[in-house]
C-alpha cells in the first residue's frame, strides 16, 4: 500500500469513527460542540476522504499491476518478459529504461495537454468494453503510436541524438522529431508486443513481480 493510500485509509477510518459517534449518540448534536462535530464528520471528512480516494485511485491506475489485472492484458504483460532484445517493451522493462511499477503507463500515456485525462476517459471505455462489449483481439491503439511518447524520454539522450541510423540522412532526424517517420512503424523498432508469437518465445522470468 503506497503512502498516499495509507493516508486515505486513515482519513476514511477517522471519518467512520466520527460518524459512528453521531449515529450512536445523535443527541449530542443538541450542543454547539455536537453541531461542529456533525459538520466535520458528515461533510468535511467524507468529502476529504473521497477526494483523496479519487487521487489514490488515479495514482494506482498508472501501475503495471493495475493494467495487467484485466486478463485480456495478460499476453501484453508477458511480452515484457520476453528474452529477446528486439522486443521493444521487453528491453525497456528488463533494462530499467522505464519504471517497472509504471511500465504500461510510461509508454501509453499521452504526453500532451490533458493526456492523463484522455487516458482516464479511455480507461472507463475499456471497463465498459470489458464487461459489456468485446475487446478487439489483438487490442488496437486508438491512433498510430506517436513518436512524442518515445521522445518524452529519449530526446536529448546520446543514444538517440548520436544514433547512427538516426543521423545517416539529415532528413531522418527531422522526420522522427516531427512524427513523420514512426519509431515503431518505419521498420526500425517495429517488434513491439507481438502477442501473436508470444507462445513460442522464451522468457527472462516467469511472471511480473
Amino acid at each position, binding site marked *: *500500500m503506497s503512502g498516499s*493510500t495509507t493516508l*486515505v*485509509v486513515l482519513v*476514511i*477510518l477517522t*471519518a*467512520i469513527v466520527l*460518524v*459512528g459517534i*453521531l*449515529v450512536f449518540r*445523535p*443527541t449530542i*448534536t443538541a450542543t454547539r460542540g455536537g453541531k461542529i462535530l*456533525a459538520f466535520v*464528520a*458528515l*461533510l468535511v471528512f*467524507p*468529502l476529504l*476522504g*473521497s477526494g483523496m*480516494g*479519487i487521487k*489514490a*485511485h488515479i495514482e494506482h*491506475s498508472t501501475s503495471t*499491476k*493495475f493494467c495487467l*489485472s*484485466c486478463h485480456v492484458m495478460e499476453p501484453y504483460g508477458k511480452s515484457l518478459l520476453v528474452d529477446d532484445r528486439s522486443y521493444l517493451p521487453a528491453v525497456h522493462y528488463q533494462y530499467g529504461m522505464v519504471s517497472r511499477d509504471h511500465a504500461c503507463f510510461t509508454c501509453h500515456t499521452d504526453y500532451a495537454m490533458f493526456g492523463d485525462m484522455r487516458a482516464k476517459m479511455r*480507461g*472507463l471505455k*475499456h*471497463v465498459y468494453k*470489458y*464487461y459489456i462489449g468485446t475487446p478487439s483481439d489483438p487490442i488496437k491503439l486508438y491512433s498510430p503510436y506517436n513518436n512524442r511518447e518515445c521522445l518524452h524520454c529519449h530526446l536529448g539522450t546520446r543514444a538517440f541524438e548520436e544514433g547512427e541510423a538516426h543521423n545517416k540522412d539529415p532528413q531522418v532526424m527531422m522526420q522522427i522529431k516531427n512524427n513523420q517517420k514512426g519509431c515503431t512503424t518505419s521498420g526500425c523498432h517495429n517488434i513491439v508486443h507481438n502477442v501473436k508469437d508470444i507462445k513460442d518465445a522464451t522468457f527472462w522470468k516467469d511472471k511480473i513481480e
Partner: protein
Amino acid sequence: MSEPLTKLERWIKISGLLIIAGLVVELISLRWDHPTSFLVFIFTGGVLIGIGILAYLYSIVSVRN
C-alpha cells in the same frame, strides 16, 4: 427509557448510516486491485456518501424552517 429522537437527530442518524456505508465501500475499493474498483468507489461509495451528505444538509435546512 430513552427519549425519542428529534427530527434532526433522526436525519443525522440516517445520514450517518449512509455515509458510513459509503466510506466502507470506498475503503474496500481502495484495497481491491482491479479497474472496476474505481467504478465501485465512485458509483457506489460516492453515491452513498453524496446521498448521506444531502440528507444531513436537508436535516439542517428542514429543522431551521
